[in-house]
């Protein structure tokens, strides 16, 4: 399956380090565009701090709106890193090599962006410390540790820390390459960050062990983070459409679906911008497309289960909610759009090898998935709150304000800006992975067959 090209270490260094050592012509234009989006979102948030959370569109009974939808969306995107890096590393899938670091870095920036949204949603984020920190601050009240809203920041902080460490530890050999290729203050900084890396067998063995260890440690966090986020909704007894036990696996598999699709989008962009055709080959898009078919279909199964569970009980309030989601404007249109974009357009297309190996189609289908998954979270959160109350005369309508829309748009700029800045300082494809892959290309002849000459030790 591997369609590698023979390359020397110098060629690999040159190809993968050029964005770090030189400034591409398009770089500052993209940075400016991302920065403008961030500035727009930041200005919107500044206005909210000045005027109060009344500028948001949330109101009784729909107290959670676009900002919480966006929070769940970005936590979902963050699951890409663990899926592609940790799980595929532990299963020794060779095709993961060029995409692991980009996936892990996407995890970090999307998770950091996600974590900011509940803070902004509270309206007075400077008071969040009194609410989330495990200390009573002379109020005589500790945090409610039985609430998933407290497990949330713990899980997100743990996931963010472990992902950041994962990126750093796998980055150390590449930092040594940068140390040896730079002079002046960049050389001093990379020397410190490289932690004395020399490339002896002990260091390589420790690096491999640490990668396996971190992958194994991150996996329970990977499952728990989005399970806990789902329980923000699942443990809300009073909201029909939320209080259902399927939410944990449904959210986790949905997160993997959107996260892996986001990595596919990122891979196309990386291949085009950095001219990495030799590293992000058609076979990688083929493999990620096949993974998306499996993950997407599993997600769709859980979506169907969630819907069936809701209808099976035939509770009037639950049925009223589903009637709103499926039959009433504008939710009916959004519902159809969500199903088409999240599953019925991309997944059947991905069944065809020609589509999986077509970069343009992979780019647009992966973006469609994330449009659909953002709509999925919107359809879960907002209509359920609109129909939360028993009495119909206090059913609500939610209209997102321009402030919320700008903050959502700004979040995309923030993640893009983070990725661009990272690509300017560190290589987005691990050099040692690309070089190690060359070793695995060696073959020997056994009779009339050519077989791999090198096998994995672990």
């Amino acid at each position, binding site marked *: 399956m591997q369609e590698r090209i023979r390359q*020397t*270490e*110098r060629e690999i*260094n040159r190809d993968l380090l050029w964005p770090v050592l030189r400034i591409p012509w398009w770089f500052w234009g993209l940075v400016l565009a991302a920065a403008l989006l961030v500035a727009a979102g930041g200005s919107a948030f500044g206005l909210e701090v000045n005027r109060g959370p009344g500028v948001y569109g949330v109101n009784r009974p729909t107290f959670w709106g676009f900002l919480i939808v966006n929070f769940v969306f970005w936590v979902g995107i963050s699951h890409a890193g663990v899926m592609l890096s940790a799980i595929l590393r532990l299963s020794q899938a060779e095709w993961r090599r060029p995409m692991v670091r980009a996936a892990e870095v996407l995890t970090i920036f999307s998770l950091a962006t996600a974590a900011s949204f509940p803070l902004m949603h509270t309206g007075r984020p400077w008071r969040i410390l009194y609410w989330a920190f*495990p200390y*009573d601050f002379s109020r*005589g009240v*500790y*945090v409610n*540790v*039985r609430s998933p809203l*407290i*497990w949330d920041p*713990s*899980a997100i902080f*743990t996931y963010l*820390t*472990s992902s950041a*460490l994962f990126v750093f*530890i796998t980055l150390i*050999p590449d930092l*040594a*390459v940068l*140390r*040896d*290729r730079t002079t002046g203050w960049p050389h001093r900084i990379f020397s410190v960050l490289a*932690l*004395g890396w*020399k*490339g*002896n*067998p*002990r*260091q*390589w*063995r*420790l*690096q*491999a*062990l*640490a990668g396996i*260890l*971190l992958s194994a*440690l*991150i996996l*329970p*966090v990977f499952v*728990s983070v989005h399970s*806990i986020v789902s329980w923000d909704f699942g443990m809300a007894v009073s909201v029909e459409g939320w209080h259902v036990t399927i939410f944990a696996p449904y959210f986790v598999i949905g997160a993997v679906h959107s996260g892996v699709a986001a990595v596919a989008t990122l891979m196309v962009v990386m291949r085009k911008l950095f001219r990495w055709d030799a590293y992000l080959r058609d076979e990688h898009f083929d493999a990620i497309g096949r993974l998306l078919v499996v993950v997407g279909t599993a997600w769709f199964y859980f979506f169907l289960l969630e819907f069936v569970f809701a209808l099976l009980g035939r509770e009037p309030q639950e049925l009223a909610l589903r009637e709103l989601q499926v039959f009433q404007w504008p939710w009916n249109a959004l519902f159809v759009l969500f199903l088409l974009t999240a599953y019925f357009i991309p997944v059947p297309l991905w069944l065809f090898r020609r589509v999986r190996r077509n970069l343009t189609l992979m780019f647009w289908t992966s973006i469609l998935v994330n449009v659909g998954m953002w709509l999925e979270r919107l359809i879960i959160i907002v209509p359920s709150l609109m129909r939360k109350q028993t009495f119909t005369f206090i059913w609500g309508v939610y209209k997102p304000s321009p402030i919320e829309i700008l903050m959502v748009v700004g979040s995309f700029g923030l993640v893009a800006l983070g990725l661009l800045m990272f690509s300017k300082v560190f290589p987005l494809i691990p*050099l*040692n992975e690309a*070089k*190690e892959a*060359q*070793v695995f290309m060696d073959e020997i002849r056994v009779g009339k067959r050519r077989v791999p000459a*090198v096998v994995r*030790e672990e």
Partner: protein
Amino acid sequence: MARPSAVLGIFADADSAGRAVERLQALGVEEVEVLTGHPYPSGAFGEAPVHPRYHRFPTAGGLVGAGVGAALGVLLQAPPAGAEHVAILTLPPAAFLAILGGVLGGLAGGLLGLAVEAEARPAPYDPEITRGRIGVRAYCSPGQVGPAARALEEAGALRVRS
């Protein structure tokens, strides 16, 4: 006891590096390490395989972290001092915080293990190693440095440093 010295030879390919390791071992140099820009299968150059006892650190850290997390989950459910009622302790918060604490503890232990087990020490190095060359470094007594350097040159070293 004389402080060990180190001599480094830079080679263009794995075969000549392997020959250099053989020659150094024939000279009686006990500690030879091969520096590469990417991992090779262990023993690829004839050097002794390494077995760092790394697992102790994340295991210990994980156990400590899990204990701290579980304790935090229990203590945060405990009633305030002086309260007359007894709080009902539920398992899930303690379990979740134990898992998260175990992960963070395992990470901290893993980092400590990397620092301890790396056994870093000052020795000659050449930036060409990260450009595809292979370095063979011998730690030997000062009297062996000359013969070791000659052995590296005879094996085809592009450059020898000490």
